[in-house]
């Protein structure tokens, strides 16, 4: 199917250095609409729901705020809600989001030993928005990639 101009522009804005340094696609060679379609299928197979996952991530970010920028144990997870100066626009241009970075990892692994994407999730307000509104988990290799299997393993 032909991409709509809005989607096409959004996909262009995901390239490195336009909105963020690394961009949203990592080393993923698939086009963003393929990434979205394949993640939607993965979510279905794992029995995950985009809204539920987004709610859960939001809840963790909120609980992590009690650590005031430092990591804090929430249940069996270690959550760090950090904040940076400034805001980021969504590639689909439907909102501005604080440039925070929340990291979630298993509480029994030391933070330095965790690897992004393998046993640690990193996300921001923008990631939650893109997950909820656009079903977009970002490309493989992006530090903010929300890998469906990892979401399932850590959150539920």
């Amino acid at each position: 199917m032909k991409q709509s101009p809005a989607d096409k522009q959004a996909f262009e804005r995901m390239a490195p250095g336009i909105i963020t340094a690394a961009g949203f696609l990592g080393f993923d060679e698939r086009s963003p609409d393929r990434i979205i379609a394949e993640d939607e299928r993965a979510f279905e197979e794992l029995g995950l729901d985009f809204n539920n996952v987004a709610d859960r991530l939001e809840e963790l970010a909120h609980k992590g705020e009690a650590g005031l920028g430092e990591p804090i144990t929430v249940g069996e997870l270690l959550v760090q809600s950090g904040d940076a100066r400034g805001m980021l626009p969504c590639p689909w241009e439907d909102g501005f989001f604080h440039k925070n970075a929340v990291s979630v990892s298993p509480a029994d692994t030391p933070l330095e030993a965790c690897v992004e994407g393998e046993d640690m999730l990193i996300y921001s307000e923008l990631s939650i928005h893109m997950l909820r509104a656009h079903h977009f988990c970002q490309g493989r290799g992006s530090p903010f990639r929300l890998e469906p299997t990892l979401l399932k393993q850590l959150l539920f």
Partner: protein
Amino acid sequence: MSPILVGPLTVAGISAVLALIIAVLDKALNNYGDVEISINGGERKLEVKGGSPLLSTLAAENIFVPSACGGRGTCGACKCKVISDVGPHLPTELPFMSPDEIAHNVRLSCQVKVRKNIEIELPRELFSIKKYKTHVEKIRDVTHDIKEVLFALDSGEIDFVSGQYVQLVVPPYGDIKESTQRAYSMSSKPSDKKHVELLIRLVPGGIATTWVHKFLKEGDAVELVGPFGEFRVHDTPAAMICVAGGSGMAPFKSIFYNLYETSAFPEKDIWYFFGARTSKDMFYLEELRELQAKWPRFHLVAALSEPSPEENWAGDTGLITDVLDRYLQTVIPKNDKGWEGYLCGSPGMINACINVMKKNGITEDKIYYDKFA
């Protein structure tokens, strides 16, 4: 003329005429001529070429309005009051504007184009802001994700007040094609006018922090713009209740060592609350303890929120807000000099601390903070 040539020549002719009209139109339309920017009611007048955004036009005249994103309209830092009419607020500006700011015609200077004579208002301190050429003298890891970077000025001296920040100019690197700027509080002493020290925490995916952590080497040339900011010690006898974690330490390091060195505000007692999760995440602890030992009015309260048993942590435990609450209620002497709050950190941390301070009788106008947002 050969009939075969008529077609191509006509098409070429029409294209050429259209291209000519467009070129002439471009010359006529995008030539705004010389325009005048009048700052603070004529206090300073600049003759500039029109057609560019206000932010970059002012920067070309060596007036640096603070901007964390370098003019892309994503940080909302470069606000400035525009008195003359430059049209309605653009959709790119509105997310950053409060209704009050819209009513007073506060604009983002990176989004407003200078098309005719305009009148603006700027804080006078911006006139003393300069761009400094420096090189990296030393980089040190203070925790697993915070680096202490010392920049040496190549020429000139920087005059600043402890608590202010500078903008780090990040050149294009890797896949990033444009230069950007990010703001960091200075942790060095104002008395050392030849150096600037910054504490930079790695933000995943951050353009500037990734550059500092993964690319920057000792000896590299770097540009800094500054100083900016209103965060500073207030001249009262009230005790300072300072709270910061992580890289929020930077302005306080500068403030403490400056007060110690200059013995300024001798009536002020200083309490510094520093929270981390485990002792591995603590830094500068030795230095600060040493400072406490030789400087009676400085009190360090370091607290761990989740110390493991094998660390043998003898200090306070719990979230820094709970520790702060306990100290305000039972430890810190209440006298008629009163208390002042000084905070640096994420908005969540600042809001939580403001609540604790208000509960303990520090009014909001006596709480000063530097939000990272």
